């Protein structure tokens, strides 16, 4: 049944869609204005959805065309969706703020390509992500994944340099293979259970040959798009080569879209006993990603590549939640700590990584390079930017009171409760490795140099302020643990034990 808040979900899809179409058709100087008007409305919408969710204590549902699933398609927002909707709007809002001057149309000249495309692609990414978070049908989610791919790939090669074109092509091939495998799995589930609706599947699915085949195909496909080790090779060149504002969207948000579907699949669609078996594998890959990603990040000489490899590692943390959630449920406990930890890690990484990529972009445009060994004096020139980078780094390492700290704390305690100490060990080692490369970058930047020798490229204050605001948000995110409610548990499908 459609709930009273249901129309909000329709609005959350139509707003970015309208913004994207308007930006494309009107073009020129109108495109950024359209986006700038739509984002604050989107923020209010996301907050309204969250408020409705907390007040009613259950998921928002909207039956499109008033058709009941399995024939029709439902939109559904639970706590996980609401948290991701809000994160997406906040990050995109700051990215738009940051990019305002970077992607301005030249005055009194014909429409330029790069600004137009940026301001069309930003609401495109937004629409795709909102569809991923709200659609409750496996095939609609496939279309949403393709929307996300088509919005993300051109961001990689916005500047048109050959190496970015190649990175974009490689990314596209990975992403297409990923979605086709996902689709194959979805077909198998339809062939067995006769529905694509997630809520219906959650009560019908049971282990079997076809279910396992579908689970593996869909998971592998989604992992290729999420860039989990060993399917991560496409990510660093793609994320590091894009313009800073685009890298921020790609690294912070786009990879979370496919990760969100991994959560949906394993927590909602598939039964708990399957996760008990598969969880160790998923977390094993995650642990490998943490170690390999951090190790390679330590060896990088260019700041943007370092940040990109750190994304590879941070994606790994997201996958530790699966065996921990399964372990808690197996002990008759609520899986809330593991799920909240995983989600908080996604939100924390989204905000911190966006801030760090944008900080790196400011450093690049000031110095004209991003060689880590030549970063001396940057802190004199761009104090707010370096502070933002450091705060983002703190969140990645997982120091209090950042969101990263809360996330890792929840995951660590879940690991110890369920006696899976090996995942705790990986988290601690990964944290130390992260600390060492964040520290080495920050230390370089605060070495004082003769101001005469610094380049005189000025960065507008508002751009530095935007990055710092997002970094502070990420730094204080851990405080959400003080709030009296557990958002992610609202409206969860399937068997949530006490």
């Amino acid at each position, binding site marked *: 049944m459609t709930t009273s808040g249901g129309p909000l979900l329709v609005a959350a899809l139509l707003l970015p869609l309208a913004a994207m179409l308007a930006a494309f058709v009107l073009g020129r100087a109108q495109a950024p204005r359209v986006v700038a008007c739509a984002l604050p409305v989107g923020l209010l919408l996301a907050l309204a959805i969250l408020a409705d969710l907390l007040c009613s204590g259950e998921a928002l549902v909207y039956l*499109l*065309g008033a058709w009941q699933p399995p024939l029709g398609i439902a939109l559904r927002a639970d706590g996980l969706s609401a948290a991701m909707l809000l994160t997406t709007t906040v990050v995109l809002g700051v990215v738009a703020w940051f990019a305002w001057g970077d992607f301005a149309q030249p005055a009194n000249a014909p429409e330029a390509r790069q600004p137009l*495309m940026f301001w069309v692609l930003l609401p495109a990414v937004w629409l795709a992500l909102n569809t991923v978070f709200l659609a409750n049908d496996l095939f609609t989610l496939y279309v949403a994944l393709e929307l996300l791919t088509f919005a993300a790939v051109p961001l990689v090669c916005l500047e048109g340099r050959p190496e970015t074109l190649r990175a974009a092509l490689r990314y596209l091939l990975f992403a297409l293979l990923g979605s086709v495998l996902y689709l194959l799995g979805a077909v198998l589930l339809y062939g067995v259970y006769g529905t694509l609706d997630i809520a219906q599947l959650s009560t019908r699915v049971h282990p079997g040959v076809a279910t396992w085949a579908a689970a593996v195909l869909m998971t592998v496909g989604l992992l290729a798009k999420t860039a989990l080790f060993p399917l991560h090779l496409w990510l660093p060149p793609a994320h590091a080569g894009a313009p800073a504002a685009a890298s921020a969207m790609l690294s912070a948000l786009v990879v979370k879209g496919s990760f969100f579907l991994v959560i949906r699949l394993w927590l909602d669609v598939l039964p708990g006993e399957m996760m008990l078996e598969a969880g160790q594998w998923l977390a094993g890959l995650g642990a490998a990603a943490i170690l390999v990603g951090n190790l390679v990040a330590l060896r990088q000489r260019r700041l943007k590549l370092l940040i990109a490899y750190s994304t590879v590692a941070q994606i790994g943390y997201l996958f530790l939640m699966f065996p921990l959630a399964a372990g808690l449920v197996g002990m008759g406990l609520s899986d809330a700590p593991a799920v909240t930890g995983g989600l908080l890690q996604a939100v924390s990484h989204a905000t911190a990584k966006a801030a760090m990529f944008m900080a790196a972009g400011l450093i690049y445009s000031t110095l004209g390079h991003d060689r880590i060994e030549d970063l001396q004096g940057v802190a004199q020139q761009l104090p707010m930017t370096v502070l933002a980078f450091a705060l983002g780094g703190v969140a990645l390492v997982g120091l209090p009171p950042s969101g990263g700290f809360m996330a890792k704390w929840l995951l660590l305690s879940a690991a110890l409760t369920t006696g899976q100490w090996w995942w705790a060990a990986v988290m601690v080692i990964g944290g130390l490795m992260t600390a060492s490369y964040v520290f080495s970058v920050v230390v370089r930047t605060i070495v004082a140099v003769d101001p005469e020798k610094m380049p005189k490229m000025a960065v507008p204050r508002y751009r530095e302020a935007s990055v710092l605001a997002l970094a502070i948000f990420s730094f204080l995110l851990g405080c959400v643990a003080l709030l009296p409610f557990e958002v992610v548990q609202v409206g969860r499908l399937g068997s949530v034990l006490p």
Partner: protein
Amino acid sequence: MMAGLVLDGLLALLVLAVAAWTIGVCQTFAATVGFTVYGLLLAVVWMRLAAPDAALTEAAIGALTGVLLLRAAIQLAPSEAGLNRLRPALKLRLLAGTLAFAITATLAAVVFHLPEPAPTLVPQVTAQQASTGLGNAVTAVLLAFRAIDTLLEAVVLIFALVAVWSLAPDAAWGGIPGAQIKGGSGDVRAYLSRLLPPVGIVIAFYIFWVGADFPGGKFQAGTLLAAMGLLATMAGLIQPPPVASRGLRWALVLGTLVFLALGLAGMPLAGAFLAYPEGWAKPLILLIEAASMLSIGVTLGLLVIGYPAGQAEQ
């Protein structure tokens, strides 16, 4: 019954043989020609699976894909020459072969493990179809029950075209799309000769299908429109408008806008987004299809033509 099975078996073998050939053959160009044939064979398979709508889409879109790939193969021939000689290492082939075999074996096992009787939504579709007034069940699914998919699919096409256009060199932005098609008129004639047969088949299918069923088929009709436009463009009879043209952009989004507007009208008039008021479903759906056909046709054609590569018009 037995004869049908033997014929289907031969058809399946033929499909697999052509598919294997497109993977194994040395020359990329030959592989793309093989792929065009493959698309037509698949359309026959769809007929055998009692899915005429899918057959028509496969034939139509397969023809467009063929044009796209053939043109790319011709253009890339010089730079791919080096890669053609490259033989993949035995280790890689063994690895890929093992993986491919594992996937095929698993899927084959699944085919034999599917439940009997098969789950189906036919009863629900036939129960609700009457309220839409549509004769074609597939159209009812596409434009009523799962209308959001169809709406999002039109958006996918717009996204894809934006993505293709975003590849334009900065200097060429605002210009006529598709100036990157190189070669003289001889090449154009060569394209045409390869394009015409599949197009002819599409038209034949289309006429057959319109006679057999009504309404629906905006994708098929849109594809036909796109194919005709492409023929005329490649023969130099018409020129696509420049990407800076506002009129062109409105044409691209028209179908989506009509769909959205009628969907929104459903909120007050029929109680839900994408719902149709009692008795109005069929005319509204026809309206959506007509607008979408235009937008889809233009989008598909421009997707094949590609990004603007020449100098922008002053």
